[in-house]
């Protein structure tokens, strides 16, 4: 037998495959096929962009952590005395509207002070360096009130190195008078970076969100690839006639899929780059990301880029498995016996997994819990997608008679449930997934949200400044303030007491004392005591205490009068119970001096004046640039308070 060798075989099988694939790629972009190709490009593009973004997530967190660690002010071991390279730094964080502003007051103590990242030099007295986002926020008229609070001359812009994200509101202001007692003495910036890792809940959220977003995309691609499949099979049959063998038709189909995948990858990359360029202007929960920090992990990105075409080809071949393409005809293989049993398995496994985890109160599985939960959610979603088409065709096949259109529609559904129902399944999964994400977010918010115990009905703001006799009036008379009460919180030394001889001491009007202790009858000159619950020095009538007074170098001795009343403790609006000595100002005498300490004011604001809070913050900052101002809320979310939220260092 003389075997004729076909040209294809002659030039090598690989060459033939490439030729077939190229031919398929040309079909993919031909006029009749491009709608389908475009759909696939869109689907694959979306998937690619999402996966690239997901692969960039760890890097994003890492960069954020690194940036945060780099700007932390740090003290070497012994910094008791000023040095050539020391810097006094005082936290001056503030809020504007509902935005947190990170602020630092600085004063160099020597010629070579450390300079924070993002700055070339420290701002001098009366000067400040601000972040670009803060510069935008300060622009009048919207920023006028904040500008009033930060009246320093702007001399520099904080560079990206000194920020965790482009939307960070941050400033460094120079001072001529700060001492280490006002804040802390540091000699460098930056701490070793703690490794950034997604917490278990965030991991769960990220994985679920990714699955939720990717499942419809995958379904979309699957539907798009079925779209026009008949035409494709007819085309392949026509090619079979003129001599394409089964492997050639397979490679032609693969070429089509590859063309779509290549287009999809390009679109996905473009989409990703586009997303990255706009991500700099996106802000969520006061978090923002520098585009430069959005870098896909190389290994993951390479995986995405190689997996997409492979999956596309594999899906195409899987689709062709159900048909026999002969020259002149396409034969659909008889549908396999309806063994749908396996379709129940993933959904069921997922449900069982989730139930077990929930019953354990979320503690089962230890560190694996979030991964198991994510797996459970994914399995349930996948199970839904797998089950729905079969279920629909079963229902369609069993449902009774009806009008002709219904019968036709039923036929179609029963025959090709996979095609049309997959679309529905995609939507179902998207909705179910969205609900899952929603629930996770709620859970997440719950785990980050704490009850503060504060009572916003009693006061809106709590201001703490250095003591200043005129300060209280200035705050109380600020536009938009409805009512206010002020007291001075300090401590006194109990004469003759051994060991811990400090006792808290509060000086305030009767109105103020009624708010912070169970005081009822009160006239100016009255003195009250609240016994500390955990012991400590006790005072009573006749005890002598020494306390610091404004404008005096030496503490003043004061005798607890006979008329002192013992009262019970009561929580103030921020749920702090105070104890010790409670004095009306008149009890200290009337020489015009007052006790030195923190001056604490609670204010109620006019709800109709939206800028009232910022006016009070301005007034407080005028009294004391490092005043600490608290907005009372019933709950607090950890997520929204990042590094900027740290309050002022404790002071006596």
């Amino acid at each position, binding site marked *: 037998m003389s075997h004729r060798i076909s040209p294809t075989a002659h030039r090598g099988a690989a060459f033939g495959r490439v030729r077939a694939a190229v031919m398929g790629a040309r079909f993919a972009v031909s006029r009749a096929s491009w709608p389908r190709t475009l759909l696939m490009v869109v689907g694959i593009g979306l998937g690619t962009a999402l996966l690239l973004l997901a692969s960039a997530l760890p890097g994003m967190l890492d960069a954020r952590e690194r940036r945060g660690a780099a700007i932390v002010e740090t003290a070497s071991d012994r910094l008791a005395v000023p040095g050539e390279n020391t810097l006094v730094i005082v936290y001056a964080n503030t809020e504007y509207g509902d935005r947190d502003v990170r602020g630092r007051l600085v004063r160099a103590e020597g010629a070579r002070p450390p300079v924070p990242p993002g700055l070339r030099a420290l701002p001098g007295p009366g000067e400040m360096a601000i972040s670009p986002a803060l510069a935008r926020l300060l622009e009048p008229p919207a920023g006028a009130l904040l500008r009033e609070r930060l009246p320093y001359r702007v001399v520099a812009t904080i560079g990206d190195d000194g920020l965790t994200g482009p939307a960070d509101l941050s400033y460094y202001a120079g001072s001529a008078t700060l001492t280490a007692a006002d804040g802390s003495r540091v000699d460098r910036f930056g701490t070793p970076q703690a490794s950034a890792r997604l917490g278990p809940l965030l991991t769960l959220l990220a994985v679920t969100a990714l699955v939720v977003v990717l499942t419809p995309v995958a379904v979309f691609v699957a539907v798009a690839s079925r779209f026009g499949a008949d035409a494709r099979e007819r085309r392949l049959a*026509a090619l079979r*006639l003129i001599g394409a063998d089964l492997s050639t038709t397979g490679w032609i189909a693969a070429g089509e899929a590859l063309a779509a995948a290549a287009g999809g990858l390009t679109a996905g990359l473009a989409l990703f780059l586009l997303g990255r360029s706009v991500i700099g202007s996106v802000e969520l929960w006061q978090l923002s990301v520098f585009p430069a920090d959005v870098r896909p992990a190389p290994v993951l990105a390479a995986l995405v880029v190689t997996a997409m075409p492979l999956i596309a080809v594999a899906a195409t071949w899987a689709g062709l498995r159900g048909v026999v393409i002969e020259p002149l005809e396409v034969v659909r293989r008889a549908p396999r016996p309806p063994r749908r049993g396996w379709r129940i398995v993933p959904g069921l496994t997922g449900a069982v997994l989730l139930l077990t985890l929930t019953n354990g109160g979320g503690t089962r599985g230890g560190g694996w819990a979030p991964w198991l939960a994510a797996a459970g959610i994914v399995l349930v979603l996948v199970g839904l997608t797998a089950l729905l088409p079969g279920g629909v065709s079963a229902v369609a096949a069993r449902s009774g008679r009806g009008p002709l259109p219904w019968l036709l529609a039923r036929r179609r559904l029963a025959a090709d449930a996979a095609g049309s129902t997959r679309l529905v399944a995609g939507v179902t999964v998207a909705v179910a997934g969205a609900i899952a994400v929603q629930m996770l977010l709620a859970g997440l918010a719950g785990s980050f949200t704490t009850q503060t115990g504060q009572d916003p009905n009693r006061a809106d703001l709590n201001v703490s400044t250095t003591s200043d006799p005129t300060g209280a009036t200035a705050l109380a008379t600020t536009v938009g303030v409805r009512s206010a009460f002020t007291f001075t919180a300090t401590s006194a030394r109990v004469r003759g007491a051994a060991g811990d001889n400090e006792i808290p001491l509060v000086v305030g009007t009767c109105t103020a004392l009624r708010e912070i202790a169970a005081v009822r009858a009160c006239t100016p000159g009255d003195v009250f005591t609240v016994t500390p619950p955990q012991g400590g020095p006790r005072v009573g009538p006749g005890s002598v205490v020494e306390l610091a007074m404004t404008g005096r170098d030496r503490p003043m001795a004061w005798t607890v009068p006979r008329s002192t009343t013992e009262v019970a403790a009561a929580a103030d609006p921020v749920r702090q119970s105070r104890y010790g000595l409670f004095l009306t100002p008149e009890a200290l005498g009337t020489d015009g001096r007052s006790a030195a300490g923190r001056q604490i004011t609670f204010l109620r604001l006019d709800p109709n004046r939206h800028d009232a809070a910022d006016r009070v913050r301005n007034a407080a900052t005028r009294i004391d640039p490092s005043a600490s101002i608290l907005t009372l809320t019933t709950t607090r979310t950890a997520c929204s308070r990042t590094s900027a939220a740290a309050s002022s260092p404790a002071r006596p």
Partner: protein
Amino acid sequence: MNRTELGALLVAADLRKTYGATPALDGASIEINTGEVVAVMGPSGSGKSTLLHCLAAIVTPDGGSVRYAGQELSTMSDRGRSAQRQSDFGFVFQFGQLVPEPTCGENVALPLRLNGVRRQASARGREWLERLEVAELADRHPGKVSGGQAQRVAVARAPAPGPRVVFADEPTGALDSLTGERVMHLLTSAARESGAAVVLVTHETRVAAYSDREVVVRDGRTPTAHRVPAARP
């Protein structure tokens, strides 16, 4: 190889093919010599198309043998039969043979491309369209031309890669009689020029007149089939 086999390019003997309970071929035999034009005639449903498909290695018969140039086609793998179709056979069917996506010109060039011809494929495609007097269809898609025009494109495609046998099943079925005759003339003369044999299924005697001889199929059998001693020069 003996003399007869040298002359008879394609020899089918005792072909059987059953679709379900219907016997489409029931012991049909036929011989095609190099370069001759054979008309296969018979009533509708007699098995003409099935015979043609078996000869052209499109369908595998249930029984009997098909030998082409000394090789048994009926037991050959799909790959081998595909390769055979690609290199040695050309096809003109009534419909469904043009690929919808490429233009008519590209369709004619497709077999050449599958053969690995790249640069001259388009030029040769156009050349054949011109010979079939439908050069103006080169840039149009098969879906956008009339049935008759598509048929002429298919006729142009068959001889383009230089096959040794052209299989034609009712090639003029969609054409009016005048065009039909013109197309038959062009097809047979092209085949004669290149020395290709033509197996022509038709029930029109007018079309059969273009053949060198006729084979009648009846109930899946070929009662009149007889050996033709020698091929035409």
